[in-house]
């Protein structure tokens, strides 16, 4: 679309975010590298958080074969970790990206990350919607195990055999 300008500034205008560029400005040299970093960060957020959420939701709704209580608790704990990781990543990744993009003077990527921060609550809405359909809490759920219920310690009136 702009062959003449691309010829004079080969590092600029690769993503379509056109902004005023100054060829004498030496800080613009590292743009391709910086842009790649910001792109990786953005798409890690875009696909990574839904990925974690889907994996966690599948684990949460599944009926796993966990014969011992320890296995069931480990399964539940791993699922909780995935949920928490998704929620933290949903907010932290765009926040980091927005700060980097702002300091690197990348208005296009800054808009992307600010948009990501605005979209992050969607994840929490989905989690809350999932929570209303479940009878037990979404986070902190432990699947069933095959161990007999633990014996009650302490006797009601008096213990047999003294």
């Amino acid at each position, binding site marked *: 679309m702009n062959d003449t300008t691309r010829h004079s500034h080969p590092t600029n205008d690769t993503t379509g975010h056109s902004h005023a560029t100054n060829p004498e400005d030496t800080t613009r040299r590292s743009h391709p590298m910086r842009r790649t970093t910001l792109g990786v960060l953005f798409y890690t957020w*875009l*696909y990574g958080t*839904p*990925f974690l959420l889907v994996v966690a*939701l599948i684990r949460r709704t599944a009926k796993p*074969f966990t014969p011992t209580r320890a296995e069931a608790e480990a*399964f539940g704990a791993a699922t909780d970790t995935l949920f928490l990781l998704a929620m933290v990543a949903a907010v932290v990744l765009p926040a980091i990206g927005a700060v980097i993009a702002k300091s690197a003077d990348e208005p*296009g990527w800054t808009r992307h990350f600010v948009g990501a921060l605005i979209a992050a609550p969607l994840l929490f809405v989905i989690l809350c919607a999932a929570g209303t359909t479940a009878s037990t809490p979404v986070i902190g759920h432990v699947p069933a195990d095959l161990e007999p219920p633990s014996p009650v310690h302490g006797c009601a009136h008096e213990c047999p055999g003294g």
Partner: protein
Amino acid sequence: MAKTFGASLLVGVGWFVTAVIAAAVGEWSVPEQPDRDCSGFGACLSLLDILPVIVFVAGVPLLLVLLLAVTAAVTRLKLPAALAGTLSAALTAAVVGAGVALYGATR
């Protein structure tokens, strides 16, 4: 424009790829009972087993609807690729989901 279109389509396809991989990883990470009665037809089929069939059957209609949605999002709304692709994927999932629901209701 063409560049934005290709990138938007890629973002939209990326959503479905992410969903399929996440479903596969999620199912794979759930331990199954080792000694199940699998004598009945399809008694022991998990999502992991039928996922290739789902992808094969749903792939072409999903891509077609996605193509239309991306075209609309890019040419009409002039959105950035990430947003256009994401909205297109959401719209495609909604349209195909509604289609499946309609098909289920009529038969």
